[in-house]
């Protein structure tokens, strides 16, 4: 693409993003807003590609738009009865005008600040590139996530787990330990069953592909986990399998296994490589792949369970 064409494309994309975002935020019906949000997420994926961040684009598509969208759509459907009451609570025109002014000035301030950022921009790209061979990886973003700043990734898996814990804590006492989500087959239809049977194995293969190439090319466990979670949700909604009760030991172990392995390898590092979360010489790549392999099922389970919600029915 020539520069002018690229810029024109960017302008078009940016305008589209703004339009869809504005529509999403201002439309009357919440369910429509949720759909708009999914469209917005897909547009953002394109923006991330234009910003030369394919790993982020994949994550945005899979988690930011895909899994989040599913969650919001489901919630919007269940909350439809409350729409009428909410209408009455809308703040007055004057209030909305004042808030709009405030938000516009915040936006302007931030935009101005961004345009004032120094040129040439300070960056850690050179340091990352120089340190990359030591990790044995080809994908710099994976290296940042699992080597240079692995504490962030470790803690982030704990964040995911805590969110799951919080969601589970919302179950009424009488159904504690039961299965999350509505009865299996609640959305049953032949089309859905067919789709689930065809798509699920394909989705699993795609997920594995993304997971495997993440070491050297855009991809990785988060995206793969999101795809696996989506496949699970599809299969569960079609009635082909039922959600496991949350009291099941094996489910708890699957969810916990990822962070546990990560921690164990971290302590291994402190024993053999001199620092917590360090990797011994030459073993970096295999250990990183091991961590990712352990994290994949945990993340997929956690993502799927977060969408499923708190326990809602006993076995």
């Amino acid at each position, binding site marked *: 693409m020539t520069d002018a064409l690229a810029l024109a494309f960017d302008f078009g994309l940016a305008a589209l993003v703004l339009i869809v975002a504005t529509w999403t935020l201002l439309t009357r019906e919440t369910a429509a807003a949720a759909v708009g949000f999914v469209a917005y997420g897909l547009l953002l994926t394109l923006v991330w590609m234009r910003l030369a961040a394919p790993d982020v684009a994949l994550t945005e598509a899979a988690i930011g738009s895909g899994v989040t969208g599913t969650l919001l759509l489901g919630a919007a459907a269940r909350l439809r009865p409350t729409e009428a009451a909410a209408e009455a609570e809308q703040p007055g025109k004057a209030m909305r005008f004042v808030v709009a002014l405030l938000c516009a000035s915040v936006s302007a301030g931030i935009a101005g600040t961004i345009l004032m950022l120094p040129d040439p921009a300070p960056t850690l790209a050179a340091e*990352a590139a120089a340190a990359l061979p030591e990790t044995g990886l080809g994908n710099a973003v994976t290296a940042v996530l699992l080597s240079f700043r692995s504490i962030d990734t470790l803690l982030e898996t704990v964040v995911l787990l805590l969110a799951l814990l919080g969601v589970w804590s919302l179950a009424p006492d009488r159904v504690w330990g039961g299965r999350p989500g509505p009865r299996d087959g609640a959305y049953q239809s032949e089309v859905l069953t067919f789709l689930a049977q065809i798509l699920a194995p394909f989705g699993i293969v795609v997920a594995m592909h993304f997971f495997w190439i993440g070491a050297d090319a855009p991809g990785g466990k988060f995206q793969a986990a999101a795809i696996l979670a989506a496949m699970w949700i599809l299969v569960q909604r079609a009635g082909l399998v039922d959600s496991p009760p949350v009291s099941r030991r094996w489910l708890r172990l699957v969810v916990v296994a990822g962070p546990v392995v990560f921690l164990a390898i971290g302590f291994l590092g402190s024993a053999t490589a001199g620092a917590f979360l360090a990797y011994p010489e030459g073993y970096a790549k295999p250990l990183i792949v091991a961590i990712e392999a352990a994290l994949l099922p945990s993340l997929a389970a956690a993502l799927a369970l977060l969408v499923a*919600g708190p326990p809602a029915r006993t076995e």
Partner: protein
Amino acid sequence: MNGAALFGVIAAALVGLGLYGLIVHPQPLRKILSFNVLGSGVFLIFGVVARRGAGAGMGGDPVPQALVITGIVVAFSATALAVALLLRLFEETGRASLRSDVSNANDEAGGNS
């Protein structure tokens, strides 16, 4: 880096839009949705920063990109927890409202610990 600057301005606009939605909408689900738009705007700012930091054979600075990936997962977790809270509130009370007179009414009744 004109493309990056353009998306930087868009990101700022998204932050403002998300903030507006978060403050103005009475329905908690719309607030959560607006929070997601706001969050994506912030992530885009990281993305613009990453793009401006391209070099050493890479299209962008990998550190902010990695931070965004972490951020997207954290934002999803937050959305899931908030939605679960909201749905539970709806199940308990039949309405989805944060209005204080709804909760204060129960408070005034006293109740126990």
